[in-house]
């Protein structure tokens, strides 16, 4: 056997003469080039166009809705992909990555219970998964439509990959959604600028954020434009500022058409007049990739939005009592300690109707166990701007 091995090795070496090796390598390169179209330039399907149609949904059982009388309820919520208060790795409170189906359903039931308590006419959601390993591949947009009185939905992915070979994340499809009692049309996913501080490989698999914009046909009134965004959280290169500016530009574009709009989302920054800008005791990450909470350099970033649009929580109210409107904390055992979630309109909100549903006393139900964000609601007057 060993004689044969030695003899074989000698013969193999004879085949690897330089000229032959060059020919072989040239052949390999040629074959690889020919095979490239089969594999494509985006083998894990992570990319998006600058503008794409949103994915539209419909509840499997439509709920009859009476015609609204002059006003509608709008709700915004970062749903944390149905993760509830499981301690995930990126929060630095735990090490979980993947949820079981039972866990996801239980968390979704909590979200649906709150939504059914509020009964919004329009709901904006950030961080909702439609086909992710971490959320047991449950299409949460369809699930919420089928378990609430909302009838129609639109979805725009912001993190999509057939497989992410990091931390066991696996397949991912997570993004923003808009729900409405009424039919949705003109759904569009507008790509936001990508971070420039990441290397190419990280950027390839990383989040690609977007603005989701749709029109919903409100009976007796007409189309209302709904715009949803979830801006960058962790970047230090000004990407978040670009996202906020792009969001404002989209609002301006729609407002110029004269259509009533309501827009919001998780802007990942705090309003002007925030007294606590850093040093949050719930932020325990030391990995700078996940440190997101020094808002001092971001002062004034939201000023143009507040100047040109009505906010669900007015600056006056907020500045009089910051804590009442805090909507986020990483620590489930703590309390909300910063406001990151917003709703704006070019029309008019019912005065004093804006509320951050922080707990039973402010919203009638505990929300801390449901997500790392508290929902925000407001009543929008159905009047032309």
């Amino acid at each position, binding site marked *: 056997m060993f004689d044969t091995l030695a003899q074989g090795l000698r013969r193999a070496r004879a085949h690897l003469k330089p000229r032959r090796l060059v020919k072989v390598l040239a052949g390999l390169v040629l074959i690889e080039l020919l095979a490239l179209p089969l594999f494509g330039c985006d083998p894990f399907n992570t990319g998006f166009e600058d503008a794409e149609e949103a994915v539209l949904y419909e509840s499997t059982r439509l709920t009859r809705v009476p015609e609204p009388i002059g006003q509608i309820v709008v709700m915004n919520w970062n749903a944390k992909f149905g993760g509830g208060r499981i301690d995930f790795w990126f929060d630095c409170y735990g*090490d*979980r990555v993947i949820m079981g189906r039972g866990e996801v359903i239980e968390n979704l039931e909590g979200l649906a219970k709150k939504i059914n308590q509020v009964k919004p006419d329009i709901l904006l959601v950030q961080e909702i998964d439609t*086909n992710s*390993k971490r959320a047991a591949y449950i299409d949460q947009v369809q699930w919420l439509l089928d378990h609430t009185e909302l009838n129609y939905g639109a979805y725009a992915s912001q993190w999509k990959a057939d497989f992410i070979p990091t931390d*066991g994340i*696996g397949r991912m499809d997570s993004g923003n959604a808009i729900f409405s009692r009424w039919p949705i049309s003109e759904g569009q996913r507008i790509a936001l600028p990508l971070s420039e501080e990441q290397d190419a490989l990280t950027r390839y698999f990383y989040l690609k954020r977007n603005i989701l914009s749709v029109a919903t046909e409100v009976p007796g009134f007409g189309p209302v434009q709904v715009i949803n965004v979830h801006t960058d959280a962790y970047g230090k290169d000004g990407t978040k500022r670009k996202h906020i500016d792009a969001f404002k530009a989209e609002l301006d574009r729609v407002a110029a058409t004269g259509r009533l709009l309501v827009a919001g989302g998780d802007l990942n920054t705090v309003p002007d007049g925030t007294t606590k800008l850093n040093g949050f005791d719930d932020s325990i990450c030391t990995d700078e990739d996940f440190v997101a909470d020094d808002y001092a350099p971001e002062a004034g970033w939201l000023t143009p939005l507040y100047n040109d649009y009505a906010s669900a929580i007015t600056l006056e109210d907020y500045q009089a009592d910051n804590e009442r409107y805090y909507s986020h904390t990483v620590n489930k055992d703590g309390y909300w300690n910063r406001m990151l979630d917003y709703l704006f309109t070019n029309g008019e909100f019912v005065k004093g109707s804006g509320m951050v549903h922080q707990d039973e006393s402010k919203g009638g139900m505990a929300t801390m166990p449901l997500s790392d964000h508290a929902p925000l609601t407001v009543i929008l007057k159905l009047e032309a701007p």
Partner: protein
Amino acid sequence: MKRSVLAATLFAALLAASPATAELKTASFRADSAYPLPEGRFELGLFGPLRYGLSERVELSAYPLYFFVIPNISAKYALMASGPFQVATRHSLVYPTLLLGLVSREGTGGILQPTTNAPHILALTNEALITRALGANHSTTLKLGISVAPRFGGGDAPGTELETIDLPLIYARTAAYHSFATARAGIAFAGKIAGPFAYTVDADYFFMPEMDGSFAFEHATMLSWHASDDFLVQAGYTLVFGEYPFGTQLHVLPMIDLKWGF
């Protein structure tokens, strides 16, 4: 699956009815056939296994590069030859637990979540291979196999269970780690085209009961350039259409390999 079993039964009946008894054949660079390697011959692929013809009936193979992280051994045994037919069985044993532990990690390369507590798994695959010569230069091989993977220990708390790896080629080959058994049936054609060029075309169907993704169909076409009797370059594609826990998906993957014989 039923059709594959029926075809195999017919093939076996034909074999039994064949009046002539032939000598066992061996062949180089024909892993997916009932022909073992010639006695004393080694073959090594850049991505493929190291194979060794232990005798005229027995061929051993293993993936040496990965052996220390995924101990594996496979044996092909040529049972009989009759007329243009030859029958062999192939048996492989793999212990993937070390590799599963290595890919359960934080950061890049983390195929499984870091908290995974992989069980001890002994994956055993048994296959029947029936090859029929088609003239002097071509052959076809029917393949039937079953995989079982007894498991011991491992995590059962949330976050520690062994998750499926939902990737083409891998999912079907690791499905047995999560179920009672998986089965596989396939057919392969191989032969010369002209001069130093040859081909292999095969199709395999994986049946994975108890799994959320319960089937996979794989088809591969490879063209080979035999630079000599002892060296070849292979290139082609593998098409995978399979059901995964998230639904069905089609992949077309470029494949390339270099093989040496000695």
